[in-house]
């Protein structure tokens, strides 16, 4: 969907660009630009819904600009965001040979979703009618699952089967609805006992459910951004997390026929990074030096093969050789 993003004077991203793959795992120090990348995509999504700006006014002298290029079949489209300051972008200029191309890109952008899961919000009961699409913090999780159970039972069953494979202590999902149309979430632990309701489930269970909802979404968005994808999840389960995200980006590899979903995920886990040894092209490192940050693709590192002979990717990242580590005073 999105082929590349270039930043000029946007927060710490003074002058840097990034080529995006179908799947992208972004690593780097805190405050190094991982979230800025996702915010830029959100700004693009928001502005793409509005009428286009006047080309003359988009580029302000000294202002921030973020430009986006797109994958085939929309290679000719460039979208440029003009920003009031380094946080608020309010103008969009589009260069497109063919107007219809931009209209198609817009349709995809409108589906884009960003997630920062909040386990407390995910545990809360949710109104039945709120379950059309998982909210950015996952707060309507119960309603989404209830809706899947009613309307797309095949997807619900797939998710449930995968959940019980990841967390074999559970045997299924329950989403009872009260008289007021509020749905609660619980997990079954066998036939003899009643389900464990959300209040008593551990944090990691909600993060797992959030990832599975994204992975098995019967109508997935064109682009999904997920922050801290490893959070609350046992390191031995990170392979399953990777598989769930690959299921979105590379559906054919999992025997699926739907369109690929572009995934941009962030992590601080060296253990998750270890799992990308064979696909360094999917790793983006945000490098921050002082107040300026830029992006690097791990695959562009000329000595990568030699480095990988000496240790795991996660350990090599932790060592600082790859950059993307906090600066020390």
């Amino acid at each position, binding site marked *: 969907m999105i082929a590349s993003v270039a930043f000029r004077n946007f927060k710490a991203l003074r002058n840097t660009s990034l080529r995006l793959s179908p799947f992208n795992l972004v690593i780097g120090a805190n405050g190094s630009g991982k979230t800025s990348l996702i915010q830029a995509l959100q700004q693009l999504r928001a502005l793409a819904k509005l009428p286009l700006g006047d080309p003359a006014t988009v580029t302000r002298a000294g202002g921030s600009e973020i430009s986006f290029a797109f994958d085939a079949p929309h290679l000719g489209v460039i979208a440029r965001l003009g920003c009031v300051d380094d946080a608020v972008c309010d103008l969009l200029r589009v260069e497109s040979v063919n107007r219809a191309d931009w209209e198609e890109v817009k349709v995809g952008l409108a589906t884009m979703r960003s997630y920062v899961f909040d386990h407390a919000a995910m545990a809360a009961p949710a109104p039945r009618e709120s379950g059309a699409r998982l909210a950015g913090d996952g707060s309507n999780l119960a309603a989404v699952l209830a809706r899947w159970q009613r309307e797309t039972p095949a997807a619900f069953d797939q998710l449930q089967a995968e959940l019980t*494979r990841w967390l074999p202590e559970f045997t299924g999902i329950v989403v009872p609805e009260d008289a007021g149309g509020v749905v609660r979430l619980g997990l079954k632990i066998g036939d003899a006992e009643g389900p464990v309701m959300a209040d008593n489930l551990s944090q990691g269970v909600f993060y797992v459910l959030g990832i599975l909802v994204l992975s098995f979404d019967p109508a997935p968005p064109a682009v999904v951004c997920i922050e801290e994808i490893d959070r609350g999840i046992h390191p*031995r389960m990170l*392979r*399953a997390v990777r*598989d769930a995200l*690959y*299921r979105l980006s*590379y559906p*054919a*590899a*999992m025997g699926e026929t739907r369109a690929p979903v572009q995934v941009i995920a962030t992590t601080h886990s060296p*253990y998750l990074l*270890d799992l990308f*040894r*064979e*696909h360094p092209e999917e790793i983006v490192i945000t490098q921050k030096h002082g107040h300026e940050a830029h992006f690097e693709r791990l695959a562009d590192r000329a000595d990568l093969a030699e480095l990988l*002979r*000496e*240790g*795991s990717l*996660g*350990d090599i990242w932790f060592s600082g050789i790859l950059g993307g580590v906090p600066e020390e005073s």
Partner: protein
Amino acid sequence: MKIAFLSESPADEAVLRVLVEGALKEQPTVASAGYRARGWPNVLQVLPAVIRHLHFNTDVDTLVVTGDSDDSPVHTAAHDAPQYYHPHCRMCQLRAVFRQTSKRFPAAHGRLRVRRVVGVAVPALEAWLLCGVEDSVNEAAWTEGQARGILPYTRAELKLKVYRTERPSLPYEIACAVREAERHRRDLRRLEYDFPGFAALLRDLQEPIPEIS
């Protein structure tokens, strides 16, 4: 016999279990915890702790460890000479860790030491899985390619041949890997002949458990 595995993934462990069962012609008791390392050289780093734990805290008598050779030097018969140790050969390195770790252990749980069973897949476990399916895939072909500076295949190519995708899900990877391992279980001779790194594992498995005399 009570056996434990130290491997890089559940898929690797599943393959090793099938191959070891095939060699033993019986179902060994398998220690419940599957011990894991995060690739090379992490396996060398965690192996001493795993050996120590098994020796003192469990009644496991056999530890099976394998690694992929990647592009490290391949173990040869010359390395088996007494006192010989090749510093970059992974078979030599794994064996040395066993030797050094348990050298001063007192006997425990009725045995002198946990029996060492070490194999090295050249260049990766997927080569073992392709043995008998792809005639060109064998340890000699790899060693010869290393000597000529032109490798006959890459690890990625081997994986693609086994899984038919670059990104198999874990359950699918396990299913493919176990299917090929089951093919070998019935008759391990071809794998033993084509892959000396597997033959070494079989020989270790035939050694007696070090008993208290």
